[in-house]
């Protein structure tokens, strides 16, 4: 009998054989992921956008830095629940039977409410965390002027309080027969459209 997903916790993973319970693995993935997709809703209509972000382990929150006004803001002001997703695609895994084709991947889904950070000191700290993640070779005061509270008024920092998360992964043997990267074959497919 199929499970009634409506009655389950948001972070319930159907394929329990693919679920990753190792929180250190989830944290490491959140630290290295280049972008994440934030899903919000407005009166039942889902929206999703892709953003740079940083995972603040100390506060157990995710910060994104975007426009002062926009869709994300108006959505979370009316309904603050959100889902944030990151993923990495690995090799494609061919099989003799079409429906057995598979793919390697790692993914994390995070659930929690989003808050618009109003405190200037916190916004400044969050922006510095984002800069430290994306530009670790550049230093404030040397390569760029440190963030000042005044300039943050033109932008907005969003904070997702992590209430629950789930990790999911599929990895095949390194010598899986015929495994390949989509990147290496994609032009064979897209050539027909160019």
């Amino acid at each position: 009998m199929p499970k009634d997903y409506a009655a389950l916790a948001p972070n319930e993973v159907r394929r329990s054989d693919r679920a990753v319970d190792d929180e250190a693995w989830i944290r490491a993935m959140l630290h290295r992921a280049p972008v994440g997709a934030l899903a919000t809703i407005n009166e039942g209509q889902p929206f999703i956008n892709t953003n740079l972000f940083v995972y603040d382990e100390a506060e157990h929150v995710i910060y994104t830095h975007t426009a002062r006004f926009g869709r994300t803001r108006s959505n979370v002001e009316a309904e603050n629940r959100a889902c944030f997703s990151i993923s990495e695609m690995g090799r494609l895994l061919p099989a003799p039977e079409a429906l057995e084709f598979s793919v390697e991947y790692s993914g994390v889904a995070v659930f929690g409410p989003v808050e618009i950070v109003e405190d200037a000191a916190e916004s400044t700290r969050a922006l510095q965390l984002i800069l430290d993640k994306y530009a670790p070779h550049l230093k404030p005061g040397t390569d760029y002027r440190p963030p000042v509270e005044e300039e943050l008024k033109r932008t907005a920092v969003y904070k997702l309080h992590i209430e629950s998360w789930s990790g999911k992964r599929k990895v095949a043997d390194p010598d899986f027969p015929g495994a390949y990267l989509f990147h290496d074959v994609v032009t064979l497919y897209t050539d027909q459209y160019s």
Partner: protein
Amino acid sequence: MSKDYATQPRTDIRFKPRIVEEGAWIKALLHRAGFGVVATSHEGQPFATNNLFVYDEPAHAIYMHTAQVGRLRANVETDERVCFTVAEMGRLLPHQQPVEFDVEYKSVVIFGHGHMIEDREEKRRALQLLLDKYAPHLKVGVDYDEMPDYDLKRTSVYAIQIEEWTGKQNEAPSDFPGAFPYHKD
């Protein structure tokens, strides 16, 4: 004064210079994207799911091969509205002023209706389109077997009928000072 986004069309893009109107550009990005993220909702709780997918130009639809039962199916059975996105990240663009730090990207956002394909032949066609995209170097009947009817029955294919889409891009000159790719090991 800020716009009230709740009353704007869902495809409204705040920052006009980033909009890409060209359909061919949007289609090309959809064809080459390795995976997409689909957002659904259930009683006010949003969900985001990553999936392999194929964009079918003639049907103007997105197909994904998913589980028979699961969150995605349960959600669209009560509310079929979905949002789907693909994105590519380019170089990071440093700036003397920290709030002016920027990033190159290309992205597409799609709004539409999600449903499970019930018709066997429509399912077969969608699955073959997925195989043609992800395994263009492999041929059915040569490198792998055709899909038997029995297998098709226990497989589910999820379709998003595209109603609207938007494209967005930020691209800097190739000699942008200090531009660098994101790397993290």
